[in-house]
């Protein structure tokens, strides 16, 4: 059967959008199907994201805009899957596009219909806390920006039809069936939030001031029902005492789901921090069982919340809530760790509700012919978490298991990576090239500057007097238009900007909003679509540099915003159109590290017929996985590993170099050149490649504590795993004690190693199965069996394994005692418990080697973080990319994680890399250095200062000895220009003239 170079993606939240962008960029036709009227999913509803407190809308909005206008992505909203047939490589899909009763092609999103509509409906985007009109758009920044009539509320008065200038309202517009063929399918329908049932013990639904976390998220949001003020629903008062209750509907066999929802611990902490930030009177208290902060930098976030924001943690599960009928306050009764019953009054309660499978999970499973797991999430492969039970169909995000945004984005890319592997021959067969209007010729014309000032909800507008800045900007020389917008980055504003460029004949555009580091390219794309060269653009960062850092000084913040706008205008008067040169791409990959992560990545590249070079420093492949026998879920790691090694060694596109050391990596995206030395004889190999994947892994901590290395009865968890799997040495042991968090979550390594809890429980259960008489005690701080791993925690307790929490400030004492060890455990309630044990197993954490990682980081020019792991481009939305293009990270090199996550990252890195490798050529930056030949004295200072060997001295017929710059190699850093004594070198985009104009701007 002929394979088809198109992909169906079901669900257009952040996961579906990321998969669509990856595949669209890699040259596949993408059909992106969304059941609601707009893309963005739950992330668009969030106020901020952990652990960076990035504004969710600010970071997701550019992605959604990009998705909405991607040339290769066909977006279908308000859809339902009707029929699916065929097999991997060639499926036929039939969908039903439900009518919006407004013609999408005609609607401009102007919103007049909504303003005039006389009927109110419940605003579901604001979780029912606000009202919208029956004719409405899901949220102001929605993509695509089209209105829809809600027929459940519409009274058919005809007002909207009357006011619509675009004649888009068509009441009798009918549902439409659409059919298409695709080669693969990605399911990303997300999750359904848990809603406490009627008569629940928390009084949700009965007491007004008990809200769910997603409702509270809307309360926090600047675009929410209370415009970002923390008010309680009963009377609109500011609640001073706010209680957050964890595990609502999670880890609850009676009223909820047995699994852990993975994200609630972190989002609750974030909501507490943001609430405090929005209103200082708020005192957040969090009631939790375990604090599961297992991700990268999560533990630091929790500590920061406690120390800086005074967020209080109480380890208890609330048994009941009652309401004071007069004050509408809530009385919480709980038991403290030392057994006291306390009754405390709170003004508001937030329930951290868990993540349920999507309501239509069974419907989807039936239509797509895939199996679901016991909790009705997609059943996937133990080792490849995006592979469903049916070939050619992949699942990602919360539909696979509850997870946070970066893991969703990773899995989305991983699913795209697997699609690449399946359909690679068909890339580029069904797509059309983007046609841009010819560039308007602006050289020599007087500047006509348009300034767009962003309110950013209340992020800017709440502190900076935006109308005043607008007035000021409109009076600056050459400014012909100053405008202000609620969100300048939203899709509707892009259209406004384009229209204004045409209307006012703008030839320079300034956006005063947030940081150019995240938003510049979005606006550049917009002005390019309007016919302006993308470099005729400037940004003034009045959010990160004004409103957010001078929150208590609105006057000064406004003055500063004016100054920054003026400086941007001064620079804009001097900017010129620039050209981007095209660079060729070497369709080959370099993968550094031969563990599971590296091998999966390399094999994926190689099976797409990209020549791949896999570099391993050890004698043999396998990495850390050589010491792991099974996964918690029962997958045989050793079988998987040997199968993988066999595939790697037999693939003809894959060159494996063991005992290898990288000597040098030169070049840039699409054109790297690597020299390495390998083997006993230290042979030197040179390799050209277009991308790099860093999968160098990490190391197991070698404990210094608890008599490790001094007493033979003290061993590491990995040693124990080997003993229990390969010997029967454990048989004679009567008592085994395991200590968790050895070398993790301490001062030196303040992070969680993520896998140790699962490892300990896995080995404990296996031991109990083999030798039921052995008494096992696990000493822990928090048990972090997130997601479906919770099942095994329960199983372990049922098997009689004892879990005992120790005081983190007072870790256990181990005393050698002839043939035994005595472990003194200090519990958090200040009790001391002594355990005599025959074996002490230490769950040693994961650490990254600073020296080793620094060498590679220097070579690749990529950063590493405080904990010596590699630092990705963006922790939320670019989890496997480096800021430097063409270089990616996966596996333990990024942060500690279990095998299945590493495999997802490996496939994700491949998918991201394929967006480059699948192209013959890519465009380079236009901001490079240029030489004024008449001024150059040929001194050669620049040649010495250039770190990229981009400059050489040449003999010119007219000007004699002069410097000459290779545009492809030039990175535009300007080291040459800063040193040029003749002022002969300038950096385009940052010319001396432009910077002097900014300096001069001072009034």
């Amino acid at each position: 059967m002929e394979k088809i170079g198109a992909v169906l993606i079901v669900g257009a939240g952040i996961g579906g959008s990321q998969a669509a962008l990856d595949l669209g960029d890699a040259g596949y036709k993408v059909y992106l199907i969304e059941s609601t009227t707009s893309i963005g999913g739950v992330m668009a509803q969030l106020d901020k994201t952990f652990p960076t407190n990035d504004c969710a809308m600010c970071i997701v909005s550019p992605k959604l805009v990009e998705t909405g206008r991607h040339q290769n992505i066909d977006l279908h909203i308000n859809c339902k899957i009707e029929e699916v047939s065929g097999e991997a490589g060639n499926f036929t899909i039939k969908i039903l596009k439900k009518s919006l009763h407004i013609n999408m092609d005609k609607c401009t999103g102007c919103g007049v219909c909504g303003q005039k509509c006389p009927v109110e409906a419940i605003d579901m985007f604001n979780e029912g806390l606000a009202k919208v009109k029956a004719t409405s758009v899901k949220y102001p920044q929605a993509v695509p920006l089209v209105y829809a009539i809600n027929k459940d509320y519409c009274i058919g008065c005809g007002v909207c039809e009357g006011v619509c200038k675009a004649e888009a309202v068509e009441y009798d517009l009918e549902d439409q069936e659409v059919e298409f063929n695709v080669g693969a399918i990605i399911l990303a329908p997300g999750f359904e939030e848990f809603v406490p049932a009627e008569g629940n013990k928390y009084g949700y639904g009965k007491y007004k001031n008990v809200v769910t976390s997603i409702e509270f998220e809307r309360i926090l949001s600047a675009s929410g029902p209370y415009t970002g003020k923390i008010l309680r629903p009963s009377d609109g008062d500011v609640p001073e005492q706010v209680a957050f209750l964890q595990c609502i509907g999670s880890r609850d066999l009676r009223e909820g789901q047995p699994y852990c929802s993975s994200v609630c611990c972190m989002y609750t902490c974030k909501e507490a921090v943001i609430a405090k930030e929005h209103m200082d009177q708020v005192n957040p208290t969090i009631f939790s069982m375990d604090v599961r902060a297992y991700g990268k930098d999560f533990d630091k976030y929790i500590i920061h919340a406690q120390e800086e924001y005074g967020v209080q943690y109480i380890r208890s599960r609330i048994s009941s809530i009652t309401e004071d009928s007069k004050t509408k306050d809530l009385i919480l009764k709980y038991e403290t760790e030392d057994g006291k019953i306390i009754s405390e009054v709170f003004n508001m309660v937030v329930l951290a509700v868990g993540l349920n499978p999507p309501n239509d999970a069974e419907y989807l499973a039936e239509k797509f012919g895939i199996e679901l797991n016991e909790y009705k999430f997609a059943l996937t492969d133990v080792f490849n978490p995006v592979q469903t039970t049916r070939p050619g169909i992949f699942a990602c995000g919360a539909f696979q298991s509850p997870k946070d945004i970066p893991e969703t984005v990773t899995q989305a890319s991983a699913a795209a990576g697997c699609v690449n592997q399946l359909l690679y021959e068909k890339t580029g067969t069904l797509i059309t090239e983007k046609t841009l209007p010819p560039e308007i010729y602006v050289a020599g014309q007087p500047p006509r500057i348009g300034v767009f000032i962003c309110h950013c909800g209340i992020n800017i507008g709440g502190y900076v007097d935006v109308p005043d800045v607008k007035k000021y900007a409109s009076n600056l020389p050459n400014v012909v238009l100053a405008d202000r917008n609620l969100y300048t980055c939203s899709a509707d504003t892009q259209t406004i900007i384009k229209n204004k460029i045409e209307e006012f004949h703008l030839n320079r555009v300034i956006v005063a909003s947030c940081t150019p580091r995240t938003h510049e390219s979005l606006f550049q794309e917009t002005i390019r679509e309007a016919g302006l060269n993308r470099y005729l653009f400037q940004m003034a960062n009045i959010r990160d540099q004004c409103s957010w850092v001078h929150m208590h000084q609105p006057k000064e913040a406004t003055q500063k915003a004016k100054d920054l706008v003026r400086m941007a205008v001064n620079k804009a008067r001097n900017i010129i159109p620039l050209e981007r040169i095209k660079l060729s791409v070497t369709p080959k990959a370099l993968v550094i590290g031969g563990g599971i992560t590296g091998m999966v990545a390399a094999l994926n590249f190689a099976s797409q017929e990209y020549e791949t070079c896999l570099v391993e420093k050890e004698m043999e492949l396998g990495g850390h996985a050589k010491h792991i026998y099974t996964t918690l879920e029962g997958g045989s790691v050793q079988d998987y590993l040997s199968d993988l090694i066999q595939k790697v060694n037999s693939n003809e596109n894959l060159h494996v170099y063991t005992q290898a050391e990288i000597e040098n990596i030169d070049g840039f995206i699409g054109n790297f050149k690597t020299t390495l030395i390998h083997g006993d004889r230290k042979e030197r190999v040179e390799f050209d490649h277009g991308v790099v994947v860093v999968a160098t892994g990490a190391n197991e901590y070698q404990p210094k504590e608890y008599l490790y290395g001094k007493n033979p009865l003290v061993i590491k968890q990995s040693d124990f795993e080997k003993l229990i799997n390969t010997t029967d040495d454990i048989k004679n042991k009567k008592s085994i004690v395991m200590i968790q968090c050895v070398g993790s979550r301490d001062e030196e390594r303040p992070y969680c190693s993520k896998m140790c809890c699962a490892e300990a429980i896995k080995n404990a259960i296996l031991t109990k199965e083999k030798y039921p008489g052995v008494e096992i005690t696990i000493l822990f701080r928090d048990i972090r069996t997130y997601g479906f791993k919770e099942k095994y925690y329960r199983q372990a307790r049922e098997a009689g394994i004892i879990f005992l929490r120790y005081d983190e400030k007072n870790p256990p004492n181990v005393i050698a005692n002839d043939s035994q060890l005595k472990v003194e455990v200090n519990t958090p309630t200040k009790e001391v418990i002594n355990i005599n044990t025959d074996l002490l197993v230490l769950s040693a954490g994961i650490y990254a080697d600073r020296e080793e990682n620094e060498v590679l980081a220097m070579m690749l020019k990529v950063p590493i973080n405080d904990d010596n792991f590699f630092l990705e481009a963006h922790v939320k939305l670019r989890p496997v990319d480096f800021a430097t293009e063409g270089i990616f990270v996966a596996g333990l090199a990024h942060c500690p994680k279990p095998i299945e996550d590493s495999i997802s990252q490996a496939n994700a890195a491949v998918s991201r890399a394929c967006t480059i490798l699948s192209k013959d050529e890519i465009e380079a930056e236009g901001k490079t250095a240029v030489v004024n030949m008449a001024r150059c004295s040929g001194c050669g200072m620049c040649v010495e200062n250039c770190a990229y060997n981009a400059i050489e001295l040449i003999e010119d017929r007219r000007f004699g000895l002069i410097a000459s710059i290779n545009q492809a190699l030039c990175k535009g850093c300007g080291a040459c220009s800063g040193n040029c004594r003749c002022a002969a070198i300038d950096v385009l985009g940052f010319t001396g003239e432009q910077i002097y104009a900014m300096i001069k701007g001072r009034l």
Partner: protein
Amino acid sequence: MTVQTVDDKSINENWEPKIIAFLCNWCSYAGADLAGVSRIQYPPNIRIVRVPCSGRINPNFIIKSLTDGWDGVLVSGCHPGDCHYISGNLVARRRFAILNELLEFFGIEPGRVNFMWASAAEGERFANLIKKVTKIIKELGPNTKFKKKWC
């Protein structure tokens, strides 16, 4: 054009210095962004000019800033070794070491022009740098030595 005489800080008790900051795009500018995202509050006296790398900063930019009446200058790049462009900040460091001596020769008080490092992960440090620099320049008073009197 009116001729102003700004010679003594006692003229205006409420005098606030204006400081221009040249920040490299990859570390210090990102650090400033992080300070913003983390809502770390600092004095509103600086105006940031983004440059690709501290190596881009020509000594003339600094001198021009002083002659144009900025009360202080801050230059901040990646920590030595962290440069996105490999060694741009090292080139800058050598250059500014020389410039510092030249400025002293001109009679510019030490502390009016500051060279520092802040990484993308150091929002807190960035805010502290700004607090420190603002304090130093406040104590030095308005920039009069180099300033053209008509601007």
